[in-house]
């Protein structure tokens, strides 16, 4: 019974009944506790039915009676077959309550337990954790700042919500250029001057955010490069460096084109008319005037000139703008201002001059190029004409001896045709193997091409496989972790395995008992058989003896006496057996009665009767009080 009670109490606690630690059997349940437990169970089983019932017993006796009646009705509605009434709750007997509670606990919906057993998703675990954390934080009372313990400062003070600001960091491993890594200056700097990351920033709060930002930036760059290399870089069949440099030149060219197209219109409207076009051209205009010097410019023929011009000027200004000594300040300032104004004027003048001159130069260079072109064409025509003239001159020289020369020419032509044929045949001889060679090489080339593309595809598939398997591994690790946490959570619920163990033990015990019972039964059967045998034997022996003695008794007086004794003996023995049997039945009856007495004692009849009497009196009092009230009213 103890096991059963333990299971019952565990289940009731899970339902939400407020049981103290000491209660470990149903015997200790009070009426209030019984009512609460039953109501909680009913609420879980059938919320609509249970929510109408109060968990606490009221004080008034009649109200108690009504609660008991409604509870009994609810239990019957759920399907309890046993005997039940208000008395079950108010004047409880242990076995009745136990059977009722067992019925209710069995009726409790199983899914609730199963749901908590199932491996829930990662997000569910996270949400549960968040909910628990927030609940814990909400449960902590608010304290004025001076009274806070350090562990609550984090959640309660406003200081915790720092804004996420990032500052650049200087990290030694960021140096990508392998040649520069070993430069002496760099090493010295890293060893002597460079402070640790936590000391590099002005405010401590931005340390974490800066480091996180730096890491994400590096990580995303690496990932991007990886994916690009896998998708395009591998197909281009170049080494990474080559691929990078090719991409760089391509990008440069693009930007150059963009800049040039943006710059051209503004160059035509020479004198700094604010361009109505794009942002970029406006910006480019800004460079032409007194440009801010601190931008790295991409190369574009127009700009490099202006850029160099402005930069060198400023550099010169920097190196020269150093006060040489102390003079009278007012005087100096006045003079400096004048000088400055003059210089600015001069500068403006020079700027416009330069612009004019550059426009002129452009024009000139264009005309120059045209003229040069023309000149080249003329020269070419000249050379052609000269060649023609020479051919004509020769023909004129040959004219006087026309026939002879004609013959000679024909012979020459014939010889040269022969030579051509000869050469052609020779060429054919050479050509055939060369063509074969060419074909062979082509085939090899194509086969190698195929091979390389096959290998490329293999590499690609390998990459894919690697990615897939890493993802899988990650997923499995996560599930493993999750299962671990779940296992830890489950460990509190040891009772489950203990119960199964107990159940198995009980089952084996029952089996053993069953075996013993069958053994005893067979023993009993054997005994019965023996008894029957013996009675049969006795009956027969007696019949034979009776007959013999009766035969003799007619003749002999003494034998008659013995016959009488025999009859008496037989009768007495019969009596004896009867008495023994009667004793057995009586003993059994006694045992039954004793059991009944025990059961009645368990029902606490006397105490219950007293309580019933008291409650009866209370009800009568209440009734009379109500009647008095009615009369008064």
């Amino acid at each position, binding site marked *: 019974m103890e096991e059963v009670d333990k299971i019952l109490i565990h289940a009731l606690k899970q339902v939400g009944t407020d049981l103290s630690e000491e209660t470990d059997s149903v015997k200790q349940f009070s009426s209030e506790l019984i009512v609460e437990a039953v109501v909680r169970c009913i609420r879980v089983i059938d919320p609509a039915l249970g929510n109408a019932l109060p968990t606490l017993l009221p004080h008034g006796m009649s109200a108690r009676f009504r609660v008991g009646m409604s509870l009994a009705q609810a239990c019957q509605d759920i399907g309890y077959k046993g005997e039940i009434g208000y008395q079950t709750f108010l004047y409880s007997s242990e076995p009745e309550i136990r059977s009722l509670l067992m019925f209710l606990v069995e009726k409790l919906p199983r899914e609730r337990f199963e749901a908590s057993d199932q491996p829930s998703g990662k997000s569910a675990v996270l949400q549960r954790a968040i909910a628990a954390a927030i609940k814990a934080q909400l449960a902590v009372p608010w304290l004025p700042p001076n009274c806070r313990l350090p562990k609550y400062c984090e959640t309660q003070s406003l200081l915790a919500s720092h*804004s*996420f*600001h*990032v*500052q*650049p960091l*200087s990290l030694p491993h*960021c*140096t*990508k*250029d392998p040649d*520069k890594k070993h*430069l002496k*200056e*760099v090493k*010295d*700097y*890293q060893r002597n*001057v460079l402070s640790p990351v936590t000391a*590099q*920033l*002005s405010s401590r709060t931005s340390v974490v955010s800066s480091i996180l930002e730096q890491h994400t930036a590096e990580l995303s760059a690496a990932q991007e490069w990886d994916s690009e290399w896998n998708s395009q870089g591998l197909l281009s069949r170049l080494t990474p460096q080559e691929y990078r440099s090719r*991409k760089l030149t391509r*990008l440069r060219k*693009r930007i150059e084109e963009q800049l040039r197209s943006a710059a051209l219109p503004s160059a035509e409207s020479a004198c700094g008319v604010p361009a109505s076009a794009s*942002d*970029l051209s406006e*910006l480019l205009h800004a460079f032409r005037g007194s440009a801010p*010097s*601190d*931008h*790295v*410019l991409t190369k574009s023929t127009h700009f490099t000139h202006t850029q160099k011009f402005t*930069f060198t000027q*400023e*550099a010169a200004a*920097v*190196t020269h*703008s*150093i*006060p040489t000594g102390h003079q009278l300040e007012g005087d100096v300032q006045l003079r400096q201002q004048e000088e400055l104004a003059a210089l600015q004027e001069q500068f403006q003048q020079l700027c416009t001059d330069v612009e004019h001159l550059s426009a002129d130069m452009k024009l000139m260079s264009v005309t120059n190029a045209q003229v040069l072109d023309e000149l080249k064409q003329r020269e070419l025509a000249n050379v052609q004409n000269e060649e023609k003239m020479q051919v004509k001159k020769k023909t004129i020289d040959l004219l006087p001896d026309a026939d002879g020369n004609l013959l000679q020419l024909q012979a020459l032509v014939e010889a040269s045709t022969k030579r051509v044929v000869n050469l052609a045949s020779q060429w054919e001889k050479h050509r055939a193997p060369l063509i074969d060679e060419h074909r062979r090489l082509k085939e090899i080339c194509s086969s190698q091409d195929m091979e390389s593309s096959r290998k490329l595809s293999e590499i690609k598939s390998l990459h894919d496989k690697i990615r897939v398997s890493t993802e899988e591994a990650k997923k499995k690790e996560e599930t493993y972790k999750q299962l671990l946490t779940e296992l830890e959570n489950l460990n509190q619920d040891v009772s489950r395995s203990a119960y199964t163990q107990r159940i198995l033990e009980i089952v084996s015990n029952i089996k053993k008992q069953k075996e013993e019972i069958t053994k005893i039964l067979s023993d009993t059967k054997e005994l019965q058989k023996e008894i029957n045998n013996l009675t049969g034997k006795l009956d027969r022996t007696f019949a034979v003896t009776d007959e013999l003695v009766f035969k003799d008794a007619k003749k002999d007086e003494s034998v008659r006496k013995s016959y009488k004794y025999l009859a008496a003996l037989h009768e007495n023995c019969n009596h004896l057996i009867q008495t023994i049997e009667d004793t057995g039945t009586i003993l059994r009856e006694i045992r039954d009665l004793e059991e009944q007495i025990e059961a009645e004692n368990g029902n606490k009849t006397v105490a219950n009767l007293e309580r019933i009497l008291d409650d009866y009196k209370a009800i009568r009092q209440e009734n009379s009080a109500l009647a008095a009230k009615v009369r008064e009213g």
Partner: protein
Amino acid sequence: MAVLLSRLPHSDCLNLCHRVVDGLCGREPPRWADYSSTWSLQEWLELLSSLTTLFRLAVQSSNSDEEVLALLSDVGSSHAKAVLSVLRSRQEEICHALLDRTNSISSATLQDFEWQLKLALSSDKISSLHSPLLSLSLDVRDNGALQPVTMELSREELSKLINALEAANKVVLQLK
């Protein structure tokens, strides 16, 4: 600048130059208060701007050692060497900072951003809402002035914003 830098001992000069580079790269620049005994405020500003310009120009036009030393001809040779070593050791960082400047060449650029996820439990009209809200604050640098832009987005608005940004990113990728 010659006179100005020479007033500092060699080792301090190295430190100062490093901190000037720090300032150039977006961290805390050196403060006048630390050097107020050496230079007046005007001298300090001049020195600072000239050093910054020097570093920028040298990295920009990738000058050789001789060219840099020629620029520093009026400083003592040990100081010039210190400046040169600082320049060589931090060249890449300066280059990075300058590239960043060039990247943010257009009128308004995103300097920094921060987000907070909030769960609205109820409003003045609806007792239980349970809708997540994202408050996004962007620090936009517009013509040199930092301008905070803060907005609160619901789930649909956020997905719209993300879609727009992804489309923009696709355009950038195509340019590559």
